[in-house]
């Protein structure tokens, strides 16, 4: 590896590690965020599990809702911790520092993603506790290796989408905030977070082609619940599509970031607050 390339790689890796550190430390410092990210989505999950009990649904549906609830914490982190991050930075007057830094913005976003995945995984343990201990959900034995593979692909595709959203939101002001708000429950619905994706039929297929959350949760359910998951596509196909999503969103994020960064600079929006 030539000198300048190695130096550039080292610089960006250091930037990624630094942003990961900030994300982890920042998440631990703010106790209300821990409650907001760990406890609240899982309270909603409990309500949906109790709805299945109210309707007298088979117990396997409760497990479906629990896994969806656990995955919802990651989606919230993608929206608010990745997609909207540049909007927050702009509001707080720090965005220009990212652009003044010598490293790539993709390195910073990667750091945010790694830190976000680590901290959200830690917080999702509360959902696991609520599901398995409090609500008494049970799953048959499963292949840990396949689970790890599917989980990793789900996370990489989701956070790559988060990077793309961050690039898009660079241009926006309050619309970014409102868009993140509007993308919560509608995406839960279109991703079949609390019910089998196949219940949505063609609409589910269309949604699965846009947001990796639906296929991710469906694939994880198939690994953990087998036939009870009422899977949408065969597990192998979903795994391949998730890998494709990862690649596509990473390329898209890089292109969108380059284009929108230039556009934001030309239109003078990078430092514009309260718009």
């Amino acid at each position, binding site marked *: 590896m030539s000198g300048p390339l190695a130096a550039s790689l080292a610089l960006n890796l250091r930037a990624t590690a630094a942003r990961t550190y900030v994300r982890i430390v920042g998440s631990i410092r703010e106790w*209300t*965020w821990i*409650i*907001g990210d760990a*406890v*609240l*989505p899982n*309270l*909603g999950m*409990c*309500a*949906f599990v*109790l*709805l*299945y*009990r*109210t*309707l*007298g*649904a*088979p117990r396997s*549906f409760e497990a479906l*809702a629990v896994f969806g609830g656990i995955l919802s914490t990651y989606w919230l982190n993608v929206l608010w911790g990745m997609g909207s991050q540049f909007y927050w930075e702009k*509001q*707080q007057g720090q965005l220009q520092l990212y652009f003044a830094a010598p490293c790539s913005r993709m390195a910073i976003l990667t750091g945010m993603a790694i830190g976000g995945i680590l901290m959200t995984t830690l917080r999702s343990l509360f959902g696991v506790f609520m599901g398995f201990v409090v609500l008494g959900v049970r799953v048959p034995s499963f292949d840990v290796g396949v689970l790890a593979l599917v989980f990793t692909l789900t996370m990489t595709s989701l956070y790559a989408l988060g990077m793309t959203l961050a690039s898009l939101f660079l241009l926006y*002001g*309050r*619309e970014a905030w*409102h868009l993140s*708000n*509007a993308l*919560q*429950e*509608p995406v*839960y*619905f279109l991703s*079949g*977070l*609390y*019910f*089998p994706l196949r*219940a*949505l039929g063609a609409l589910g297929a269309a949604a699965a082609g846009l947001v990796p959350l639906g296929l991710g949760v469906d694939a994880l359910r198939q690994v953990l619940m087998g036939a009870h998951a*009422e899977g949408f596509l065969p597990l192998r196909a979903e795994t391949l599509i998730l890998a494709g999503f990862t690649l596509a969103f990473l390329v898209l994020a890089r292109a969108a970031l380059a284009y929108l960064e230039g556009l934001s600079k030309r239109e003078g929006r990078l430092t514009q607050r*309260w718009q």
Partner: protein
Amino acid sequence: MRTLTARLRTAAWLGWQVESNWADPLVFFIYTVLRPLATSLILAAMYWAVGARATRAGLFPAVYLGNAFHVYVTTVVIGMGWVVVEDREEYETLKYVFTSPIGMFSYLTGRASVKLVLATVSLLLTLGVGWFLVHVRWSWSAVAWGPLLATLVLGLAATLALGFLVAGVGLLLPRAAININEGLAVSLYLLCGVIFPIDLLPHGLQELSLLLPFTWWYEGLRRFTFGHGVSARIGALSNVQLLGALLVTTLAFMLLGYRGYSALERRARQAGRLDQTTMF
């Protein structure tokens, strides 16, 4: 009286501008109805997914109705909390409201009135989707209109009262108020049995649930619309007892909202929190 009306109108107009001026009317309309509608569609999809395997599917319309009305809590209560956080932290205009003759109480009431209208639009759309898409229907002649109207008014009064309390807490707390706001909506979703009978809650939480007017509100709305609720525990009570419980808890909330807000605002003034910015 004329002055008060003018103040409320001005606050409502300002609220409308702040809420909606970031988008054109169509986008704003879609944004307003998207979240509550999606939650209702999640319930509908859960119902479709279970299908014939549900042994108590007949309870679904009552569940759907409770969820539709919960939009008032998420929009008005949480919205009033957000007004304080946004005006103080983001736009840094809260201090000017306090120095203006309008007064914070009138200002919040005006802002809440816009949110009430937006929540009503969401409610009607959600009920429309329920009626046409998932057959959440009721017999118009069987609706107990008088008790239903009383229930509706009391529930909205309780919603506003809680909104003031949440706004008061927002005045005192730093950015943590954001999570308190969001947390309250989800906690009430679980505690008040919006989509399931409170009978399924463990003891302790059930009793806590009965202290909240919203528990009685949702059950009253269901009973006076469909002729039955979803909770066996509340179902054992007569209509008068149910309305009485709603009235008592609502009055308690109104007192708590008024007194609580006043005390919290006073405390925030003393502690110099009215112009704090903590969103760094």
